[in-house]
């Protein structure tokens, strides 16, 4: 029987943790881009764009992330499209986070007073100019704390991808447990790793919230 030192466990978790970080980052960036597109569709003057965006948001917020992951990983395979686990994980998390980010940001855009739209309209700005120069810069300020807060959800959300065999932190925990028979130690360390990733972000989010509330340049 091979024996494992604590350092063996930590080292292997650290290696797997890179994938958790990488997956979180790519999800956050890509989800942000898709979320921004959904936001624009959601605020479009064209009805079918608005309805489409609404449907998207309702579908991805109204079903479990796990289902979405299964559908992309196994569902696409049914059509002969073999998707590697890392890609399925990235796609599912991106689509899922886009629906939440779009809705968070829409709330922030809605919080901008109507007068800002009217004032920029009468200065002859078009819709995109209004968004780009007047509305989004103001919405961004109030969007930062909830967006960073959602980042925490994304990090924890990556744990779900272990189920399709993507070896990130949680999956590595399972694998190491199977080899070492030390579930408590292993998962306690896994938990600490997640905490180490999420806690600074939550703190940062709280700090931002205070900052933007205090120095209130609207």
């Amino acid at each position, binding site marked *: 029987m091979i024996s494992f030192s604590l350092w063996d466990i930590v080292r292997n978790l650290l290696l797997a943790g890179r994938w958790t970080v990488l997956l979180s980052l790519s999800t956050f960036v890509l989800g942000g881009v898709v979320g921004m597109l959904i936001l624009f569709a959601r605020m479009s003057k064209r009805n079918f764009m608005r309805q489409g965006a609404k449907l998207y948001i309702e579908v991805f917020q109204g079903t479990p992330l796990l289902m979405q992951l299964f559908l992309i990983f196994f569902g696409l395979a049914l059509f002969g499209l073999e998707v590697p686990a890392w890609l399925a994980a990235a796609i599912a998390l991106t689509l899922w986070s886009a629906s939440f980010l779009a809705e968070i940001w829409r709330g922030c855009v809605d919080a901008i007073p109507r007068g800002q739209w009217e004032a920029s309209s009468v200065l002859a700005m078009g819709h995109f100019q209004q968004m780009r120069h007047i509305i989004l810069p103001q919405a961004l*300020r109030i969007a930062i704390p909830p967006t960073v807060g959602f980042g925490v959800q994304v990090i924890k959300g990556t744990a779900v991808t272990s189920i399709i065999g993507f070896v990130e932190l949680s999956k590595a925990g399972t694998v190491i447990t199977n080899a070492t028979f030390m579930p408590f130690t292993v998962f306690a360390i896994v938990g600490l790793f997640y905490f180490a990733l999420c806690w600074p972000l939550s703190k940062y989010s709280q700090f931002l919230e205070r900052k933007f509330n205090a120095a209130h340049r609207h």
Partner: protein
Amino acid sequence: MPLIAIEDVKKSYGDNEVLKGIRLSVDAGEVIAIIGKSGSGKSTLLRCINGLETINEGSISVAGAYLGTSELELKTLRLKVGMIFQQFNLFPHLSVGRNVMISPMIVKGVSEEEARALAKKNLERVGLAEKFDSFPDQLSGGQQQRVAIARALSMQPQALLCDEITSALDPELVNEVLAVVRSLAEDGMTLLMVTHEMRFAREVCDRVVFMHQGKVHEIGPPEELFTHPKTPELQQFIGMTH
């Protein structure tokens, strides 16, 4: 050929008809006050002129640009006519200078230096040249409203719509804004203002429009309307405000 032509304009919100066939033409350089009780449709009329509200019937044109529904038609119209609001609506995330510069730059494609020079000139005109780098929340209401006027002027409109622009101001700040409006009138700017400042309307305006229940009820030179109101509604309205 009038600068602003409003022809048989009707507008309803659902079953509620707020404008019941408005006809009004305004010549270039004219200063017109629109008075009336709240709910008489005066603000709605003003907001129809630059397409902030849609109309159900009739037509509106400013210097040959007709009110339409497409973004291009609206843009063409809004380049001819500026507007100032009761609540100022300055852009809080931009400095005073940037507030004034932004639209000429992104809408008209004016260069930054040119926009800056124009902004400085217009801020000077409203007496706020030294506030160029301040932010809106560092200014008093009266100063903010004057910046809003400078911002509208920087688009070089042919007419300005003023929607109760002194109603949100503390009494001691009203005069500084009215002084600016008066100087605009003297410089020949075409002004259409919804106002409760009767004395100002009387002194500065060429014509006064009294609106009542969605119609132009009485119209004429201020002396005539204020000293010899013909209709009982106007008599009552003037009695109320004096």
